[in-house]
């Protein structure tokens, strides 16, 4: 039962703290909206318009994300046109938050970094602090609480310097939130208290109330119920004073919850009745859902199962209302994902499938074992489970996303590290010096052109998971024609493909070709050949790199001595076999043969057959 309560508070609390991610438009916001629109359409100074655009975008966040996005984009445009680094910084900061809300942390981070650079340049401390605070919020939602805290602290230092105490209070509040999520309730209370003290000095009664509520919640988690009640009562007094009925109703729900945890059902009921009267007046689905759930729980504890059932029915009605609101938003968000990340979608579909099957099974089992009382509990359990499952699905997806990203990054690092040796680049630059000294302009220019083509192709290939044999051959030809320029007319090469149209990981063959040139052919006198074959052998793609060089016994690459390049290639081939579902039965996929008559070296490697179609 405690678990259910935890979930509810986890949903309610961050909204107060972090200025309305999903809160509906209140009357005062609507008024503000009209006046902001007036500013934008007026002929006033650019800075006022940009600031109005940013503020509007903030208000629309969570209500109409597309509109918020458009507004932020316009504000970026306008501030760029006006040439104002300061406003561009704030606009980028806004855009970063939007990307964060949309679940695109990479784009968000990019915006934040740009904003930081701008503010750093003009030494705008408030701007820097605002960005760090938002980066903190991003990490908070990613559940990376240490990083969140670190960024809040940076913001705090800056805000203390500028003396913007209202923001200092906000930051203490957020830091308290972090501590609460880290289950360090004593520290959380300390931070909330600091926020409270500042707000008290500012006479900001509205947010003073929310601080009191946060402290009460922290005490509740600590199971220090007397202090929790004390703080909630103080919050109630303040809400009454300011006339904020929404918060007042929330406070009564919160107080009821504390009493429930203390098993004082009578007191709890009194509180829910007070909350109900307010919520009905406000027509807030969210509040009503929480109230009816709490009332049902009261009844269950008091043994009044019929009343509990009726209250659950009401709770379910409001849950549907709230859920359908959330669902509409979720669908819009899913669509954005769908457009951009097909792979991501596949994983999600699989998850949803599995979860759905799981749920159906459990649902049937519960239905079979019912009485009237049990029905109420069963329905409650079902909906609770669904909520739980949603959270789990989200978390699972997040984990799989992250793992996928990490894997892709690791693979790319491997591809990059297997790129051509810097020695090659130095040799190329040496040759260039020669052309320049000879004042041979045309050769210099075409040499630079070819070198940049090769580097571009290397970069492009490194970002791909697979390339076709045709692309690999084109790349090798580009590379080897370069080596030819360095080695002169005595060097020639030939690449042959036995009519195969297959895929392979990029940057596997080039290190082998480079080894052959460097250790086998470069030290040799006379004609130098390099041959590369692509063929099919026993359900594998076999690639042979053969040279007529000096051989390993005379070259630098002695038998038994394993070069770094070969090690990386070997590891990547192994990874590829594992990925294609081969077990470890194939011991080695790369073989080196010493040729004797004539001398030379032959390297063969085997890869899984991989078709695109």
């Amino acid at each position, binding site marked *: 039962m405690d678990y259910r309560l935890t979930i509810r508070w986890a949903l309610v609390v961050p909204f107060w703290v972090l200025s309305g991610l999903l809160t509906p438009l209140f009357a005062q916001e609507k008024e503000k909206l009209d006046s902001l629109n007036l500013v934008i359409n007026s002929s006033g100074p650019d800075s006022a318009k940009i600031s109005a655009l940013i503020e509007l975008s903030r208000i629309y966040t969570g209500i109409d994300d597309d509109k918020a996005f458009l507004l932020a984009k316009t504000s970026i445009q306008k501030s*760029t046109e006006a040439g104002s680094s300061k406003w*561009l910084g704030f606009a980028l900061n806004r855009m970063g938050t939007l990307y964060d809300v949309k679940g695109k942390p990479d784009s968000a981070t990019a915006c934040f970094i740009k904003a930081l650079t701008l503010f750093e340049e003009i030494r705008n401390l408030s701007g820097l602090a605002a960005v760090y605070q938002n980066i903190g919020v991003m990490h908070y939602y990613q559940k990376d609480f240490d990083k969140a805290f670190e960024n809040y602290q940076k913001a705090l230092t800056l805000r203390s310097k500028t003396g913007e105490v209202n923001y200092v209070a906000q930051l203490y509040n957020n830091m308290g939130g972090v501590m609460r999520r880290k289950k360090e309730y004593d520290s959380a209370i300390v931070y909330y208290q600091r926020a409270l003290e500042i707000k008290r000095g500012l006479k900001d009664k509205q947010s003073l109330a929310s601080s009191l509520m946060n402290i009460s919640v922290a005490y509740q988690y600590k199971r220090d119920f007397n202090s929790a009640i004390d703080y909630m009562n103080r919050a109630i007094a303040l809400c009454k004073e300011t006339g904020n009925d929404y918060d007042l109703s929330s406070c009564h729900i919160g107080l009821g919850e504390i009493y429930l945890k203390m098993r004082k059902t009578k007191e709890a009921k009194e509180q829910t009745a007070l909350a109900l009267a307010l919520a009905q007046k406000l027509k807030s689905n969210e509040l009503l859902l929480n109230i009816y759930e709490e009332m049902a729980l009261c009844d269950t504890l008091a043994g009044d199962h019929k009343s509990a059932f009726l209250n659950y029915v009401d709770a379910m009605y409001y849950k549907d209302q709230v859920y359908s609101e959330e669902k509409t938003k979720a669908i819009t968000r899913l669509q954005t994902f*769908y*457009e*951009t990340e*097909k792979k991501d*979608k*596949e994983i999600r*579909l699989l998850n949803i499938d599995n979860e759905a099957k799981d749920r159906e099974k459990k649902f049937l089992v519960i239905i079979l074992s019912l009485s009237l009382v049990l029905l109420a509990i069963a329905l409650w359990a079902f909906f609770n489970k669904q909520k739980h499952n949603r959270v789990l699905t989200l978390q699972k997806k997040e984990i799989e996303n992250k793992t996928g990203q990490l894997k892709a990054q690791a693979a790319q690092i491997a591809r990059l590290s297997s790129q051509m040796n810097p020695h090659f680049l130095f040799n190329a630059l040496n040759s260039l010096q020669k052309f320049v000294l000879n004042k041979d*302009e045309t050769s210099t*220019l*075409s040499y*630079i*052109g070819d070198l*940049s*083509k090769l580097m*571009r192709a290397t970069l*492009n290939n490194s970002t791909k998971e697979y390339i076709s044999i045709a692309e690999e051959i084109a790349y090798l030809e580009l590379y080897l024609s370069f080596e030819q320029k360095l080695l002169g007319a005595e060097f020639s090469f030939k690449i042959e493909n036995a009519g195969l*149209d297959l895929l392979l990981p990029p940057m596997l063959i080039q290190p082998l070709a480079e080894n052959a040139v460097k250790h086998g052919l470069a030290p040799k006198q006379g004609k130098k050949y390099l041959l590369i074959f692509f063929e099919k052998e026993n359900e594998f793609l076999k690639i042979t790199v053969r040279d007529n060089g000096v051989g390993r016994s005379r070259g630098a690459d002695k038998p038994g001595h394993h070069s770094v390049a070969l090690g990386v290639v070997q590891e990547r081939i192994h990874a590829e076999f594992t990925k294609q579902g081969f077990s470890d039965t194939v011991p080695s996929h790369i073989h080196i043969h010493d040729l004797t008559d004539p001398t030379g070296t032959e390297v063969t490697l085997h890869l899984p057959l991989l*078709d*695109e*179609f």
Partner: protein
Amino acid sequence: MINAIIIEDDKNNIEVLRALLEKFCPEVSVTGSALTAGDGVQLIKANQPDLIFLDVELGNETGFDVIKNFPSAAFKIIFTTAHEQYAFKAIKASCIEYLLKPVNYRELQEAVKKFASQKNLSVNQKKIEVLLDNLGNTNSAFNKLAIPTSDGYAFLNASEIMYCQADLNYTLIHTSKNERLVSSKNLKEFEELLSAPVFFRCHKSYIINLNYIKKFNRADSVVYMTNETAIDIAVRKKEEFLKLFEKF
């Protein structure tokens, strides 16, 4: 003489391009250069150039900010860019000429030769429209395409393309209006431009528009398009294809 200007935010690059043009393309006379988008716009108005070498990245601005100011452009453009990013794909979709930096003098000569051979300014304008239209939408897919054909260019909305079929190094484009275009680009180049969620490379020789699928025969792994054409789904693409539809 071809009256050309260079808009580029790096002074060194301007000098290199100027020198390369002097040496390898004597028919081009560089009458001015600008370092920012704003100066570029002024320079175009003052010099009325035939040809602009336009850098894609201009500090915080872009070369597109320059051409936005000229809805009926009397000039042609050759873009210059250092790396291949989203905007680069949009340039490809519009078939406007481009050069990768560092500029290769042979490619420069090619591009100038192409410029001289294309007399039709209205085609040029349409290409610019396609480019600006695609940059304006935030989707990953492009709305409009310029397609090189044997007798010039065809301009199409991506949504009108029903399917593309490989024909050696050419591509046959079948539209919803039952037209058939032959393009000199190969299917792989089209695959880069026609992406999810609307298009799907279902086979070595086919890219299909998912909006024009009428039915799917699971047993034979064949889709029927709205004009009754039957197209194979490759064995290795079947699973991915089916997943696209689980959603609906």
